[in-house]
């Protein structure tokens, strides 16, 4: 197991170096003077230009700049936001719990609906349920989620008035930012109605963000289950007179879930992309919206730091998924 772990970690080193090169090269690749570009149309005084150049390290050799950049990362220095003058890491960490809360709710929703849908579709192969659920999964997979979010707002917020249009909680409620997870903080605050308000704000964004992963998980669960159901040991279990539910629940499901776990893990990357759109539609104050805002106000240190941090998180999640896969499936570990 330790050799497997070391092998996986060693594999990550070149990818990590590549990610730092991409994030570092991003500002340097901008055509023209990056400081002038960051200043935008409003222009910049020569003094501020010199100050910014020095702050961003553009006045030093490129290799030195890169090494400084990497050393900074290891010391937790991801640069300073031009818009707020605060450290990028601090800004990211303040907003990240909002994205994480949304992503966790979405992945739970996607898994709770996707897996049963796929498994039942496989068991009832060829039935109307199979065709309808897989048809729905394909529609979900093809869904432009930014449009889906707008449609849900029209229906549930505009016509039915059931859910709020944007934000994380009503302005009526105020409590200290403890964990950063609004559901937990609102519950701990003890304020009447705060939890319900936080939950109602979370429902539509979670559905939107869960749509594509749900479709992918349902399709993957179905094909994994179909493959397992045709295995000899399942036939043997059936021949021994076991009930259909016992065959599926005890023998087939556990083995079918191995590739599905990988699929769920890989959806984290998809979710980070989806979060950009979902957070923009619902004005959800997470890192996705922050990235879009940073790009549009040319706050390139924030974009650079955010890019690096998001890629780092995706890389670590993928590593954890790989390790989990190795633990669940010994054949992978020993191959």
């Amino acid at each position, binding site marked *: 197991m330790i050799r497997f772990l070391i092998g996986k970690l060693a594999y990550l080193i070149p990818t990590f170096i590549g990610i730092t090169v991409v994030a570092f090269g991003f500002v340097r690749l901008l055509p023209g003077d990056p400081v002038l570009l960051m200043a935008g149309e409003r222009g910049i005084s020569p003094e501020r230009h010199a100050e910014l150049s020095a702050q961003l390290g553009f006045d030093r050799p490129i290799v030195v700049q890169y090494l400084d950049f990497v050393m900074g990362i290891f010391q937790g220095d991801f640069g300073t936001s031009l818009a707020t003058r605060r450290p990028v890491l601090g800004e990211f960490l303040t907003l990240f719990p909002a994205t994480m809360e949304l992503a966790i709710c979405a992945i739970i929703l996607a898994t709770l609906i996707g897996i049963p849908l796929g498994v039942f579709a496989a068991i009832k192969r060829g039935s109307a349920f199979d065709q309808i659920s897989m048809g729905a999964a394909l529609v979900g997979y093809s869904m432009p989620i930014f449009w889906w979010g*707008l449609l849900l707002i029209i229906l549930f917020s505009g016509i039915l008035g059931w859910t709020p249009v944007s934000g994380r909680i009503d302005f009526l409620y105020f409590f200290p930012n403890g964990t950063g997870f609004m559901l937990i903080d609102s519950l701990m605050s003890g304020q009447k109605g705060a939890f319900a308000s936080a939950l109602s704000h979370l429902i539509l964004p979670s559905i939107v963000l869960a749509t594509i992963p749900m479709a992918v998980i349902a399709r993957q669960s179905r094909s994994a289950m179909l493959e397992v159901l045709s295995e000899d040991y399942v036939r043997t279990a059936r021949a021994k007179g076991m009930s259909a539910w016992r065959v599926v629940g005890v023998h087939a499901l556990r083995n079918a879930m191995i590739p599905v776990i990988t699929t769920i893990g890989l959806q984290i990357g998809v979710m980070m992309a989806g979060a950009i759109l979902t957070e923009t539609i619902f004005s959800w104050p997470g890192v996705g919206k922050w990235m879009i805002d940073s790009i549009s106000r040319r706050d390139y240190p924030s974009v650079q730091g955010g890019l690096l941090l*998001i890629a780092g998180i995706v890389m670590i999640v993928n590593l954890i998924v790989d390790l989990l896969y190795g633990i669940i499936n010994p054949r992978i570990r020993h191959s």
Partner: protein
Amino acid sequence: MTATVKPQSERARVLREFWFYFSENRGAVIGLAVFLALIFVAIFAPLLAPHDPIQQYRDFLLAPPSWQEGGASQFLLGTDAVGRDVLSRLIFGARQSLIIGCVVVFIALVGGIILGLVAGFFGGWVDTVIMRVMDVILAFPSLLLALVMVAILGPGLMNAMIAIAIVLQPHFARLTRAAVMAEKNKEYVMAARVAGAGRFRLMVRTILPNCMGPLIVQGTLSFSNAVLDAAALGFLGMGAQPPIPEWGTMLAEAREFILSAWWVVTFPGLAILITVLAINLVGDGLRDALDPKLKRS
């Protein structure tokens, strides 16, 4: 009585076999029909569109669809906030989407095939370098990387297409490399090598045609991804710029009217969904038809 049986060419037989398996998937056939209809609409957009897509009819701002109360008969699907005909913009938008899909898949496919062929054929450090670069690209969420690239290159349709192609290209490179590595030690390649075929010929004429199945399926999936990502970039203001009638940009312009004018939001999104769904259906059918494991012999 004698009957002359023409020797059937190999290509025709392969095509017939392909169509046999493809047409078994009803969804794929429907998807193909919708996709062909979209191509027709895109080609003949100037003839089919009732109005100029960027012409503003200032007397008909946010006019509802013609069947709804207050709708005008000359604007079947209504007008947008500056009085442009929604139907005409949707029809011309089909053009943009298909161009985006074709250009992105072409760039990603050609780039990916070249990189994958070189990596798989030469192996060693060339392979390591190319595949690590591909890993780095895949480490970033695709839309985020495309967004940042567009921020570097500047907002616009062409830059959005280049960015999406770069993001999608590692999938083609990986597939080609895997297929080349599986094929390159087979006997027919050895035979070609012994017969004196050069490296370029071995790569392009001998090995590549035998790797095309998975690449075609990936190409279809990438086409739908390209349409979706380009629309997403347009929606975020980083893709096609107004007044270009692009579906994602149309949605971005319509956002502030979502609670007052449902038609400006509903129809562009529906167009994106139908297009992407049709292409994905075709992709599923192609996968079934081209995957030998799924064929019943």
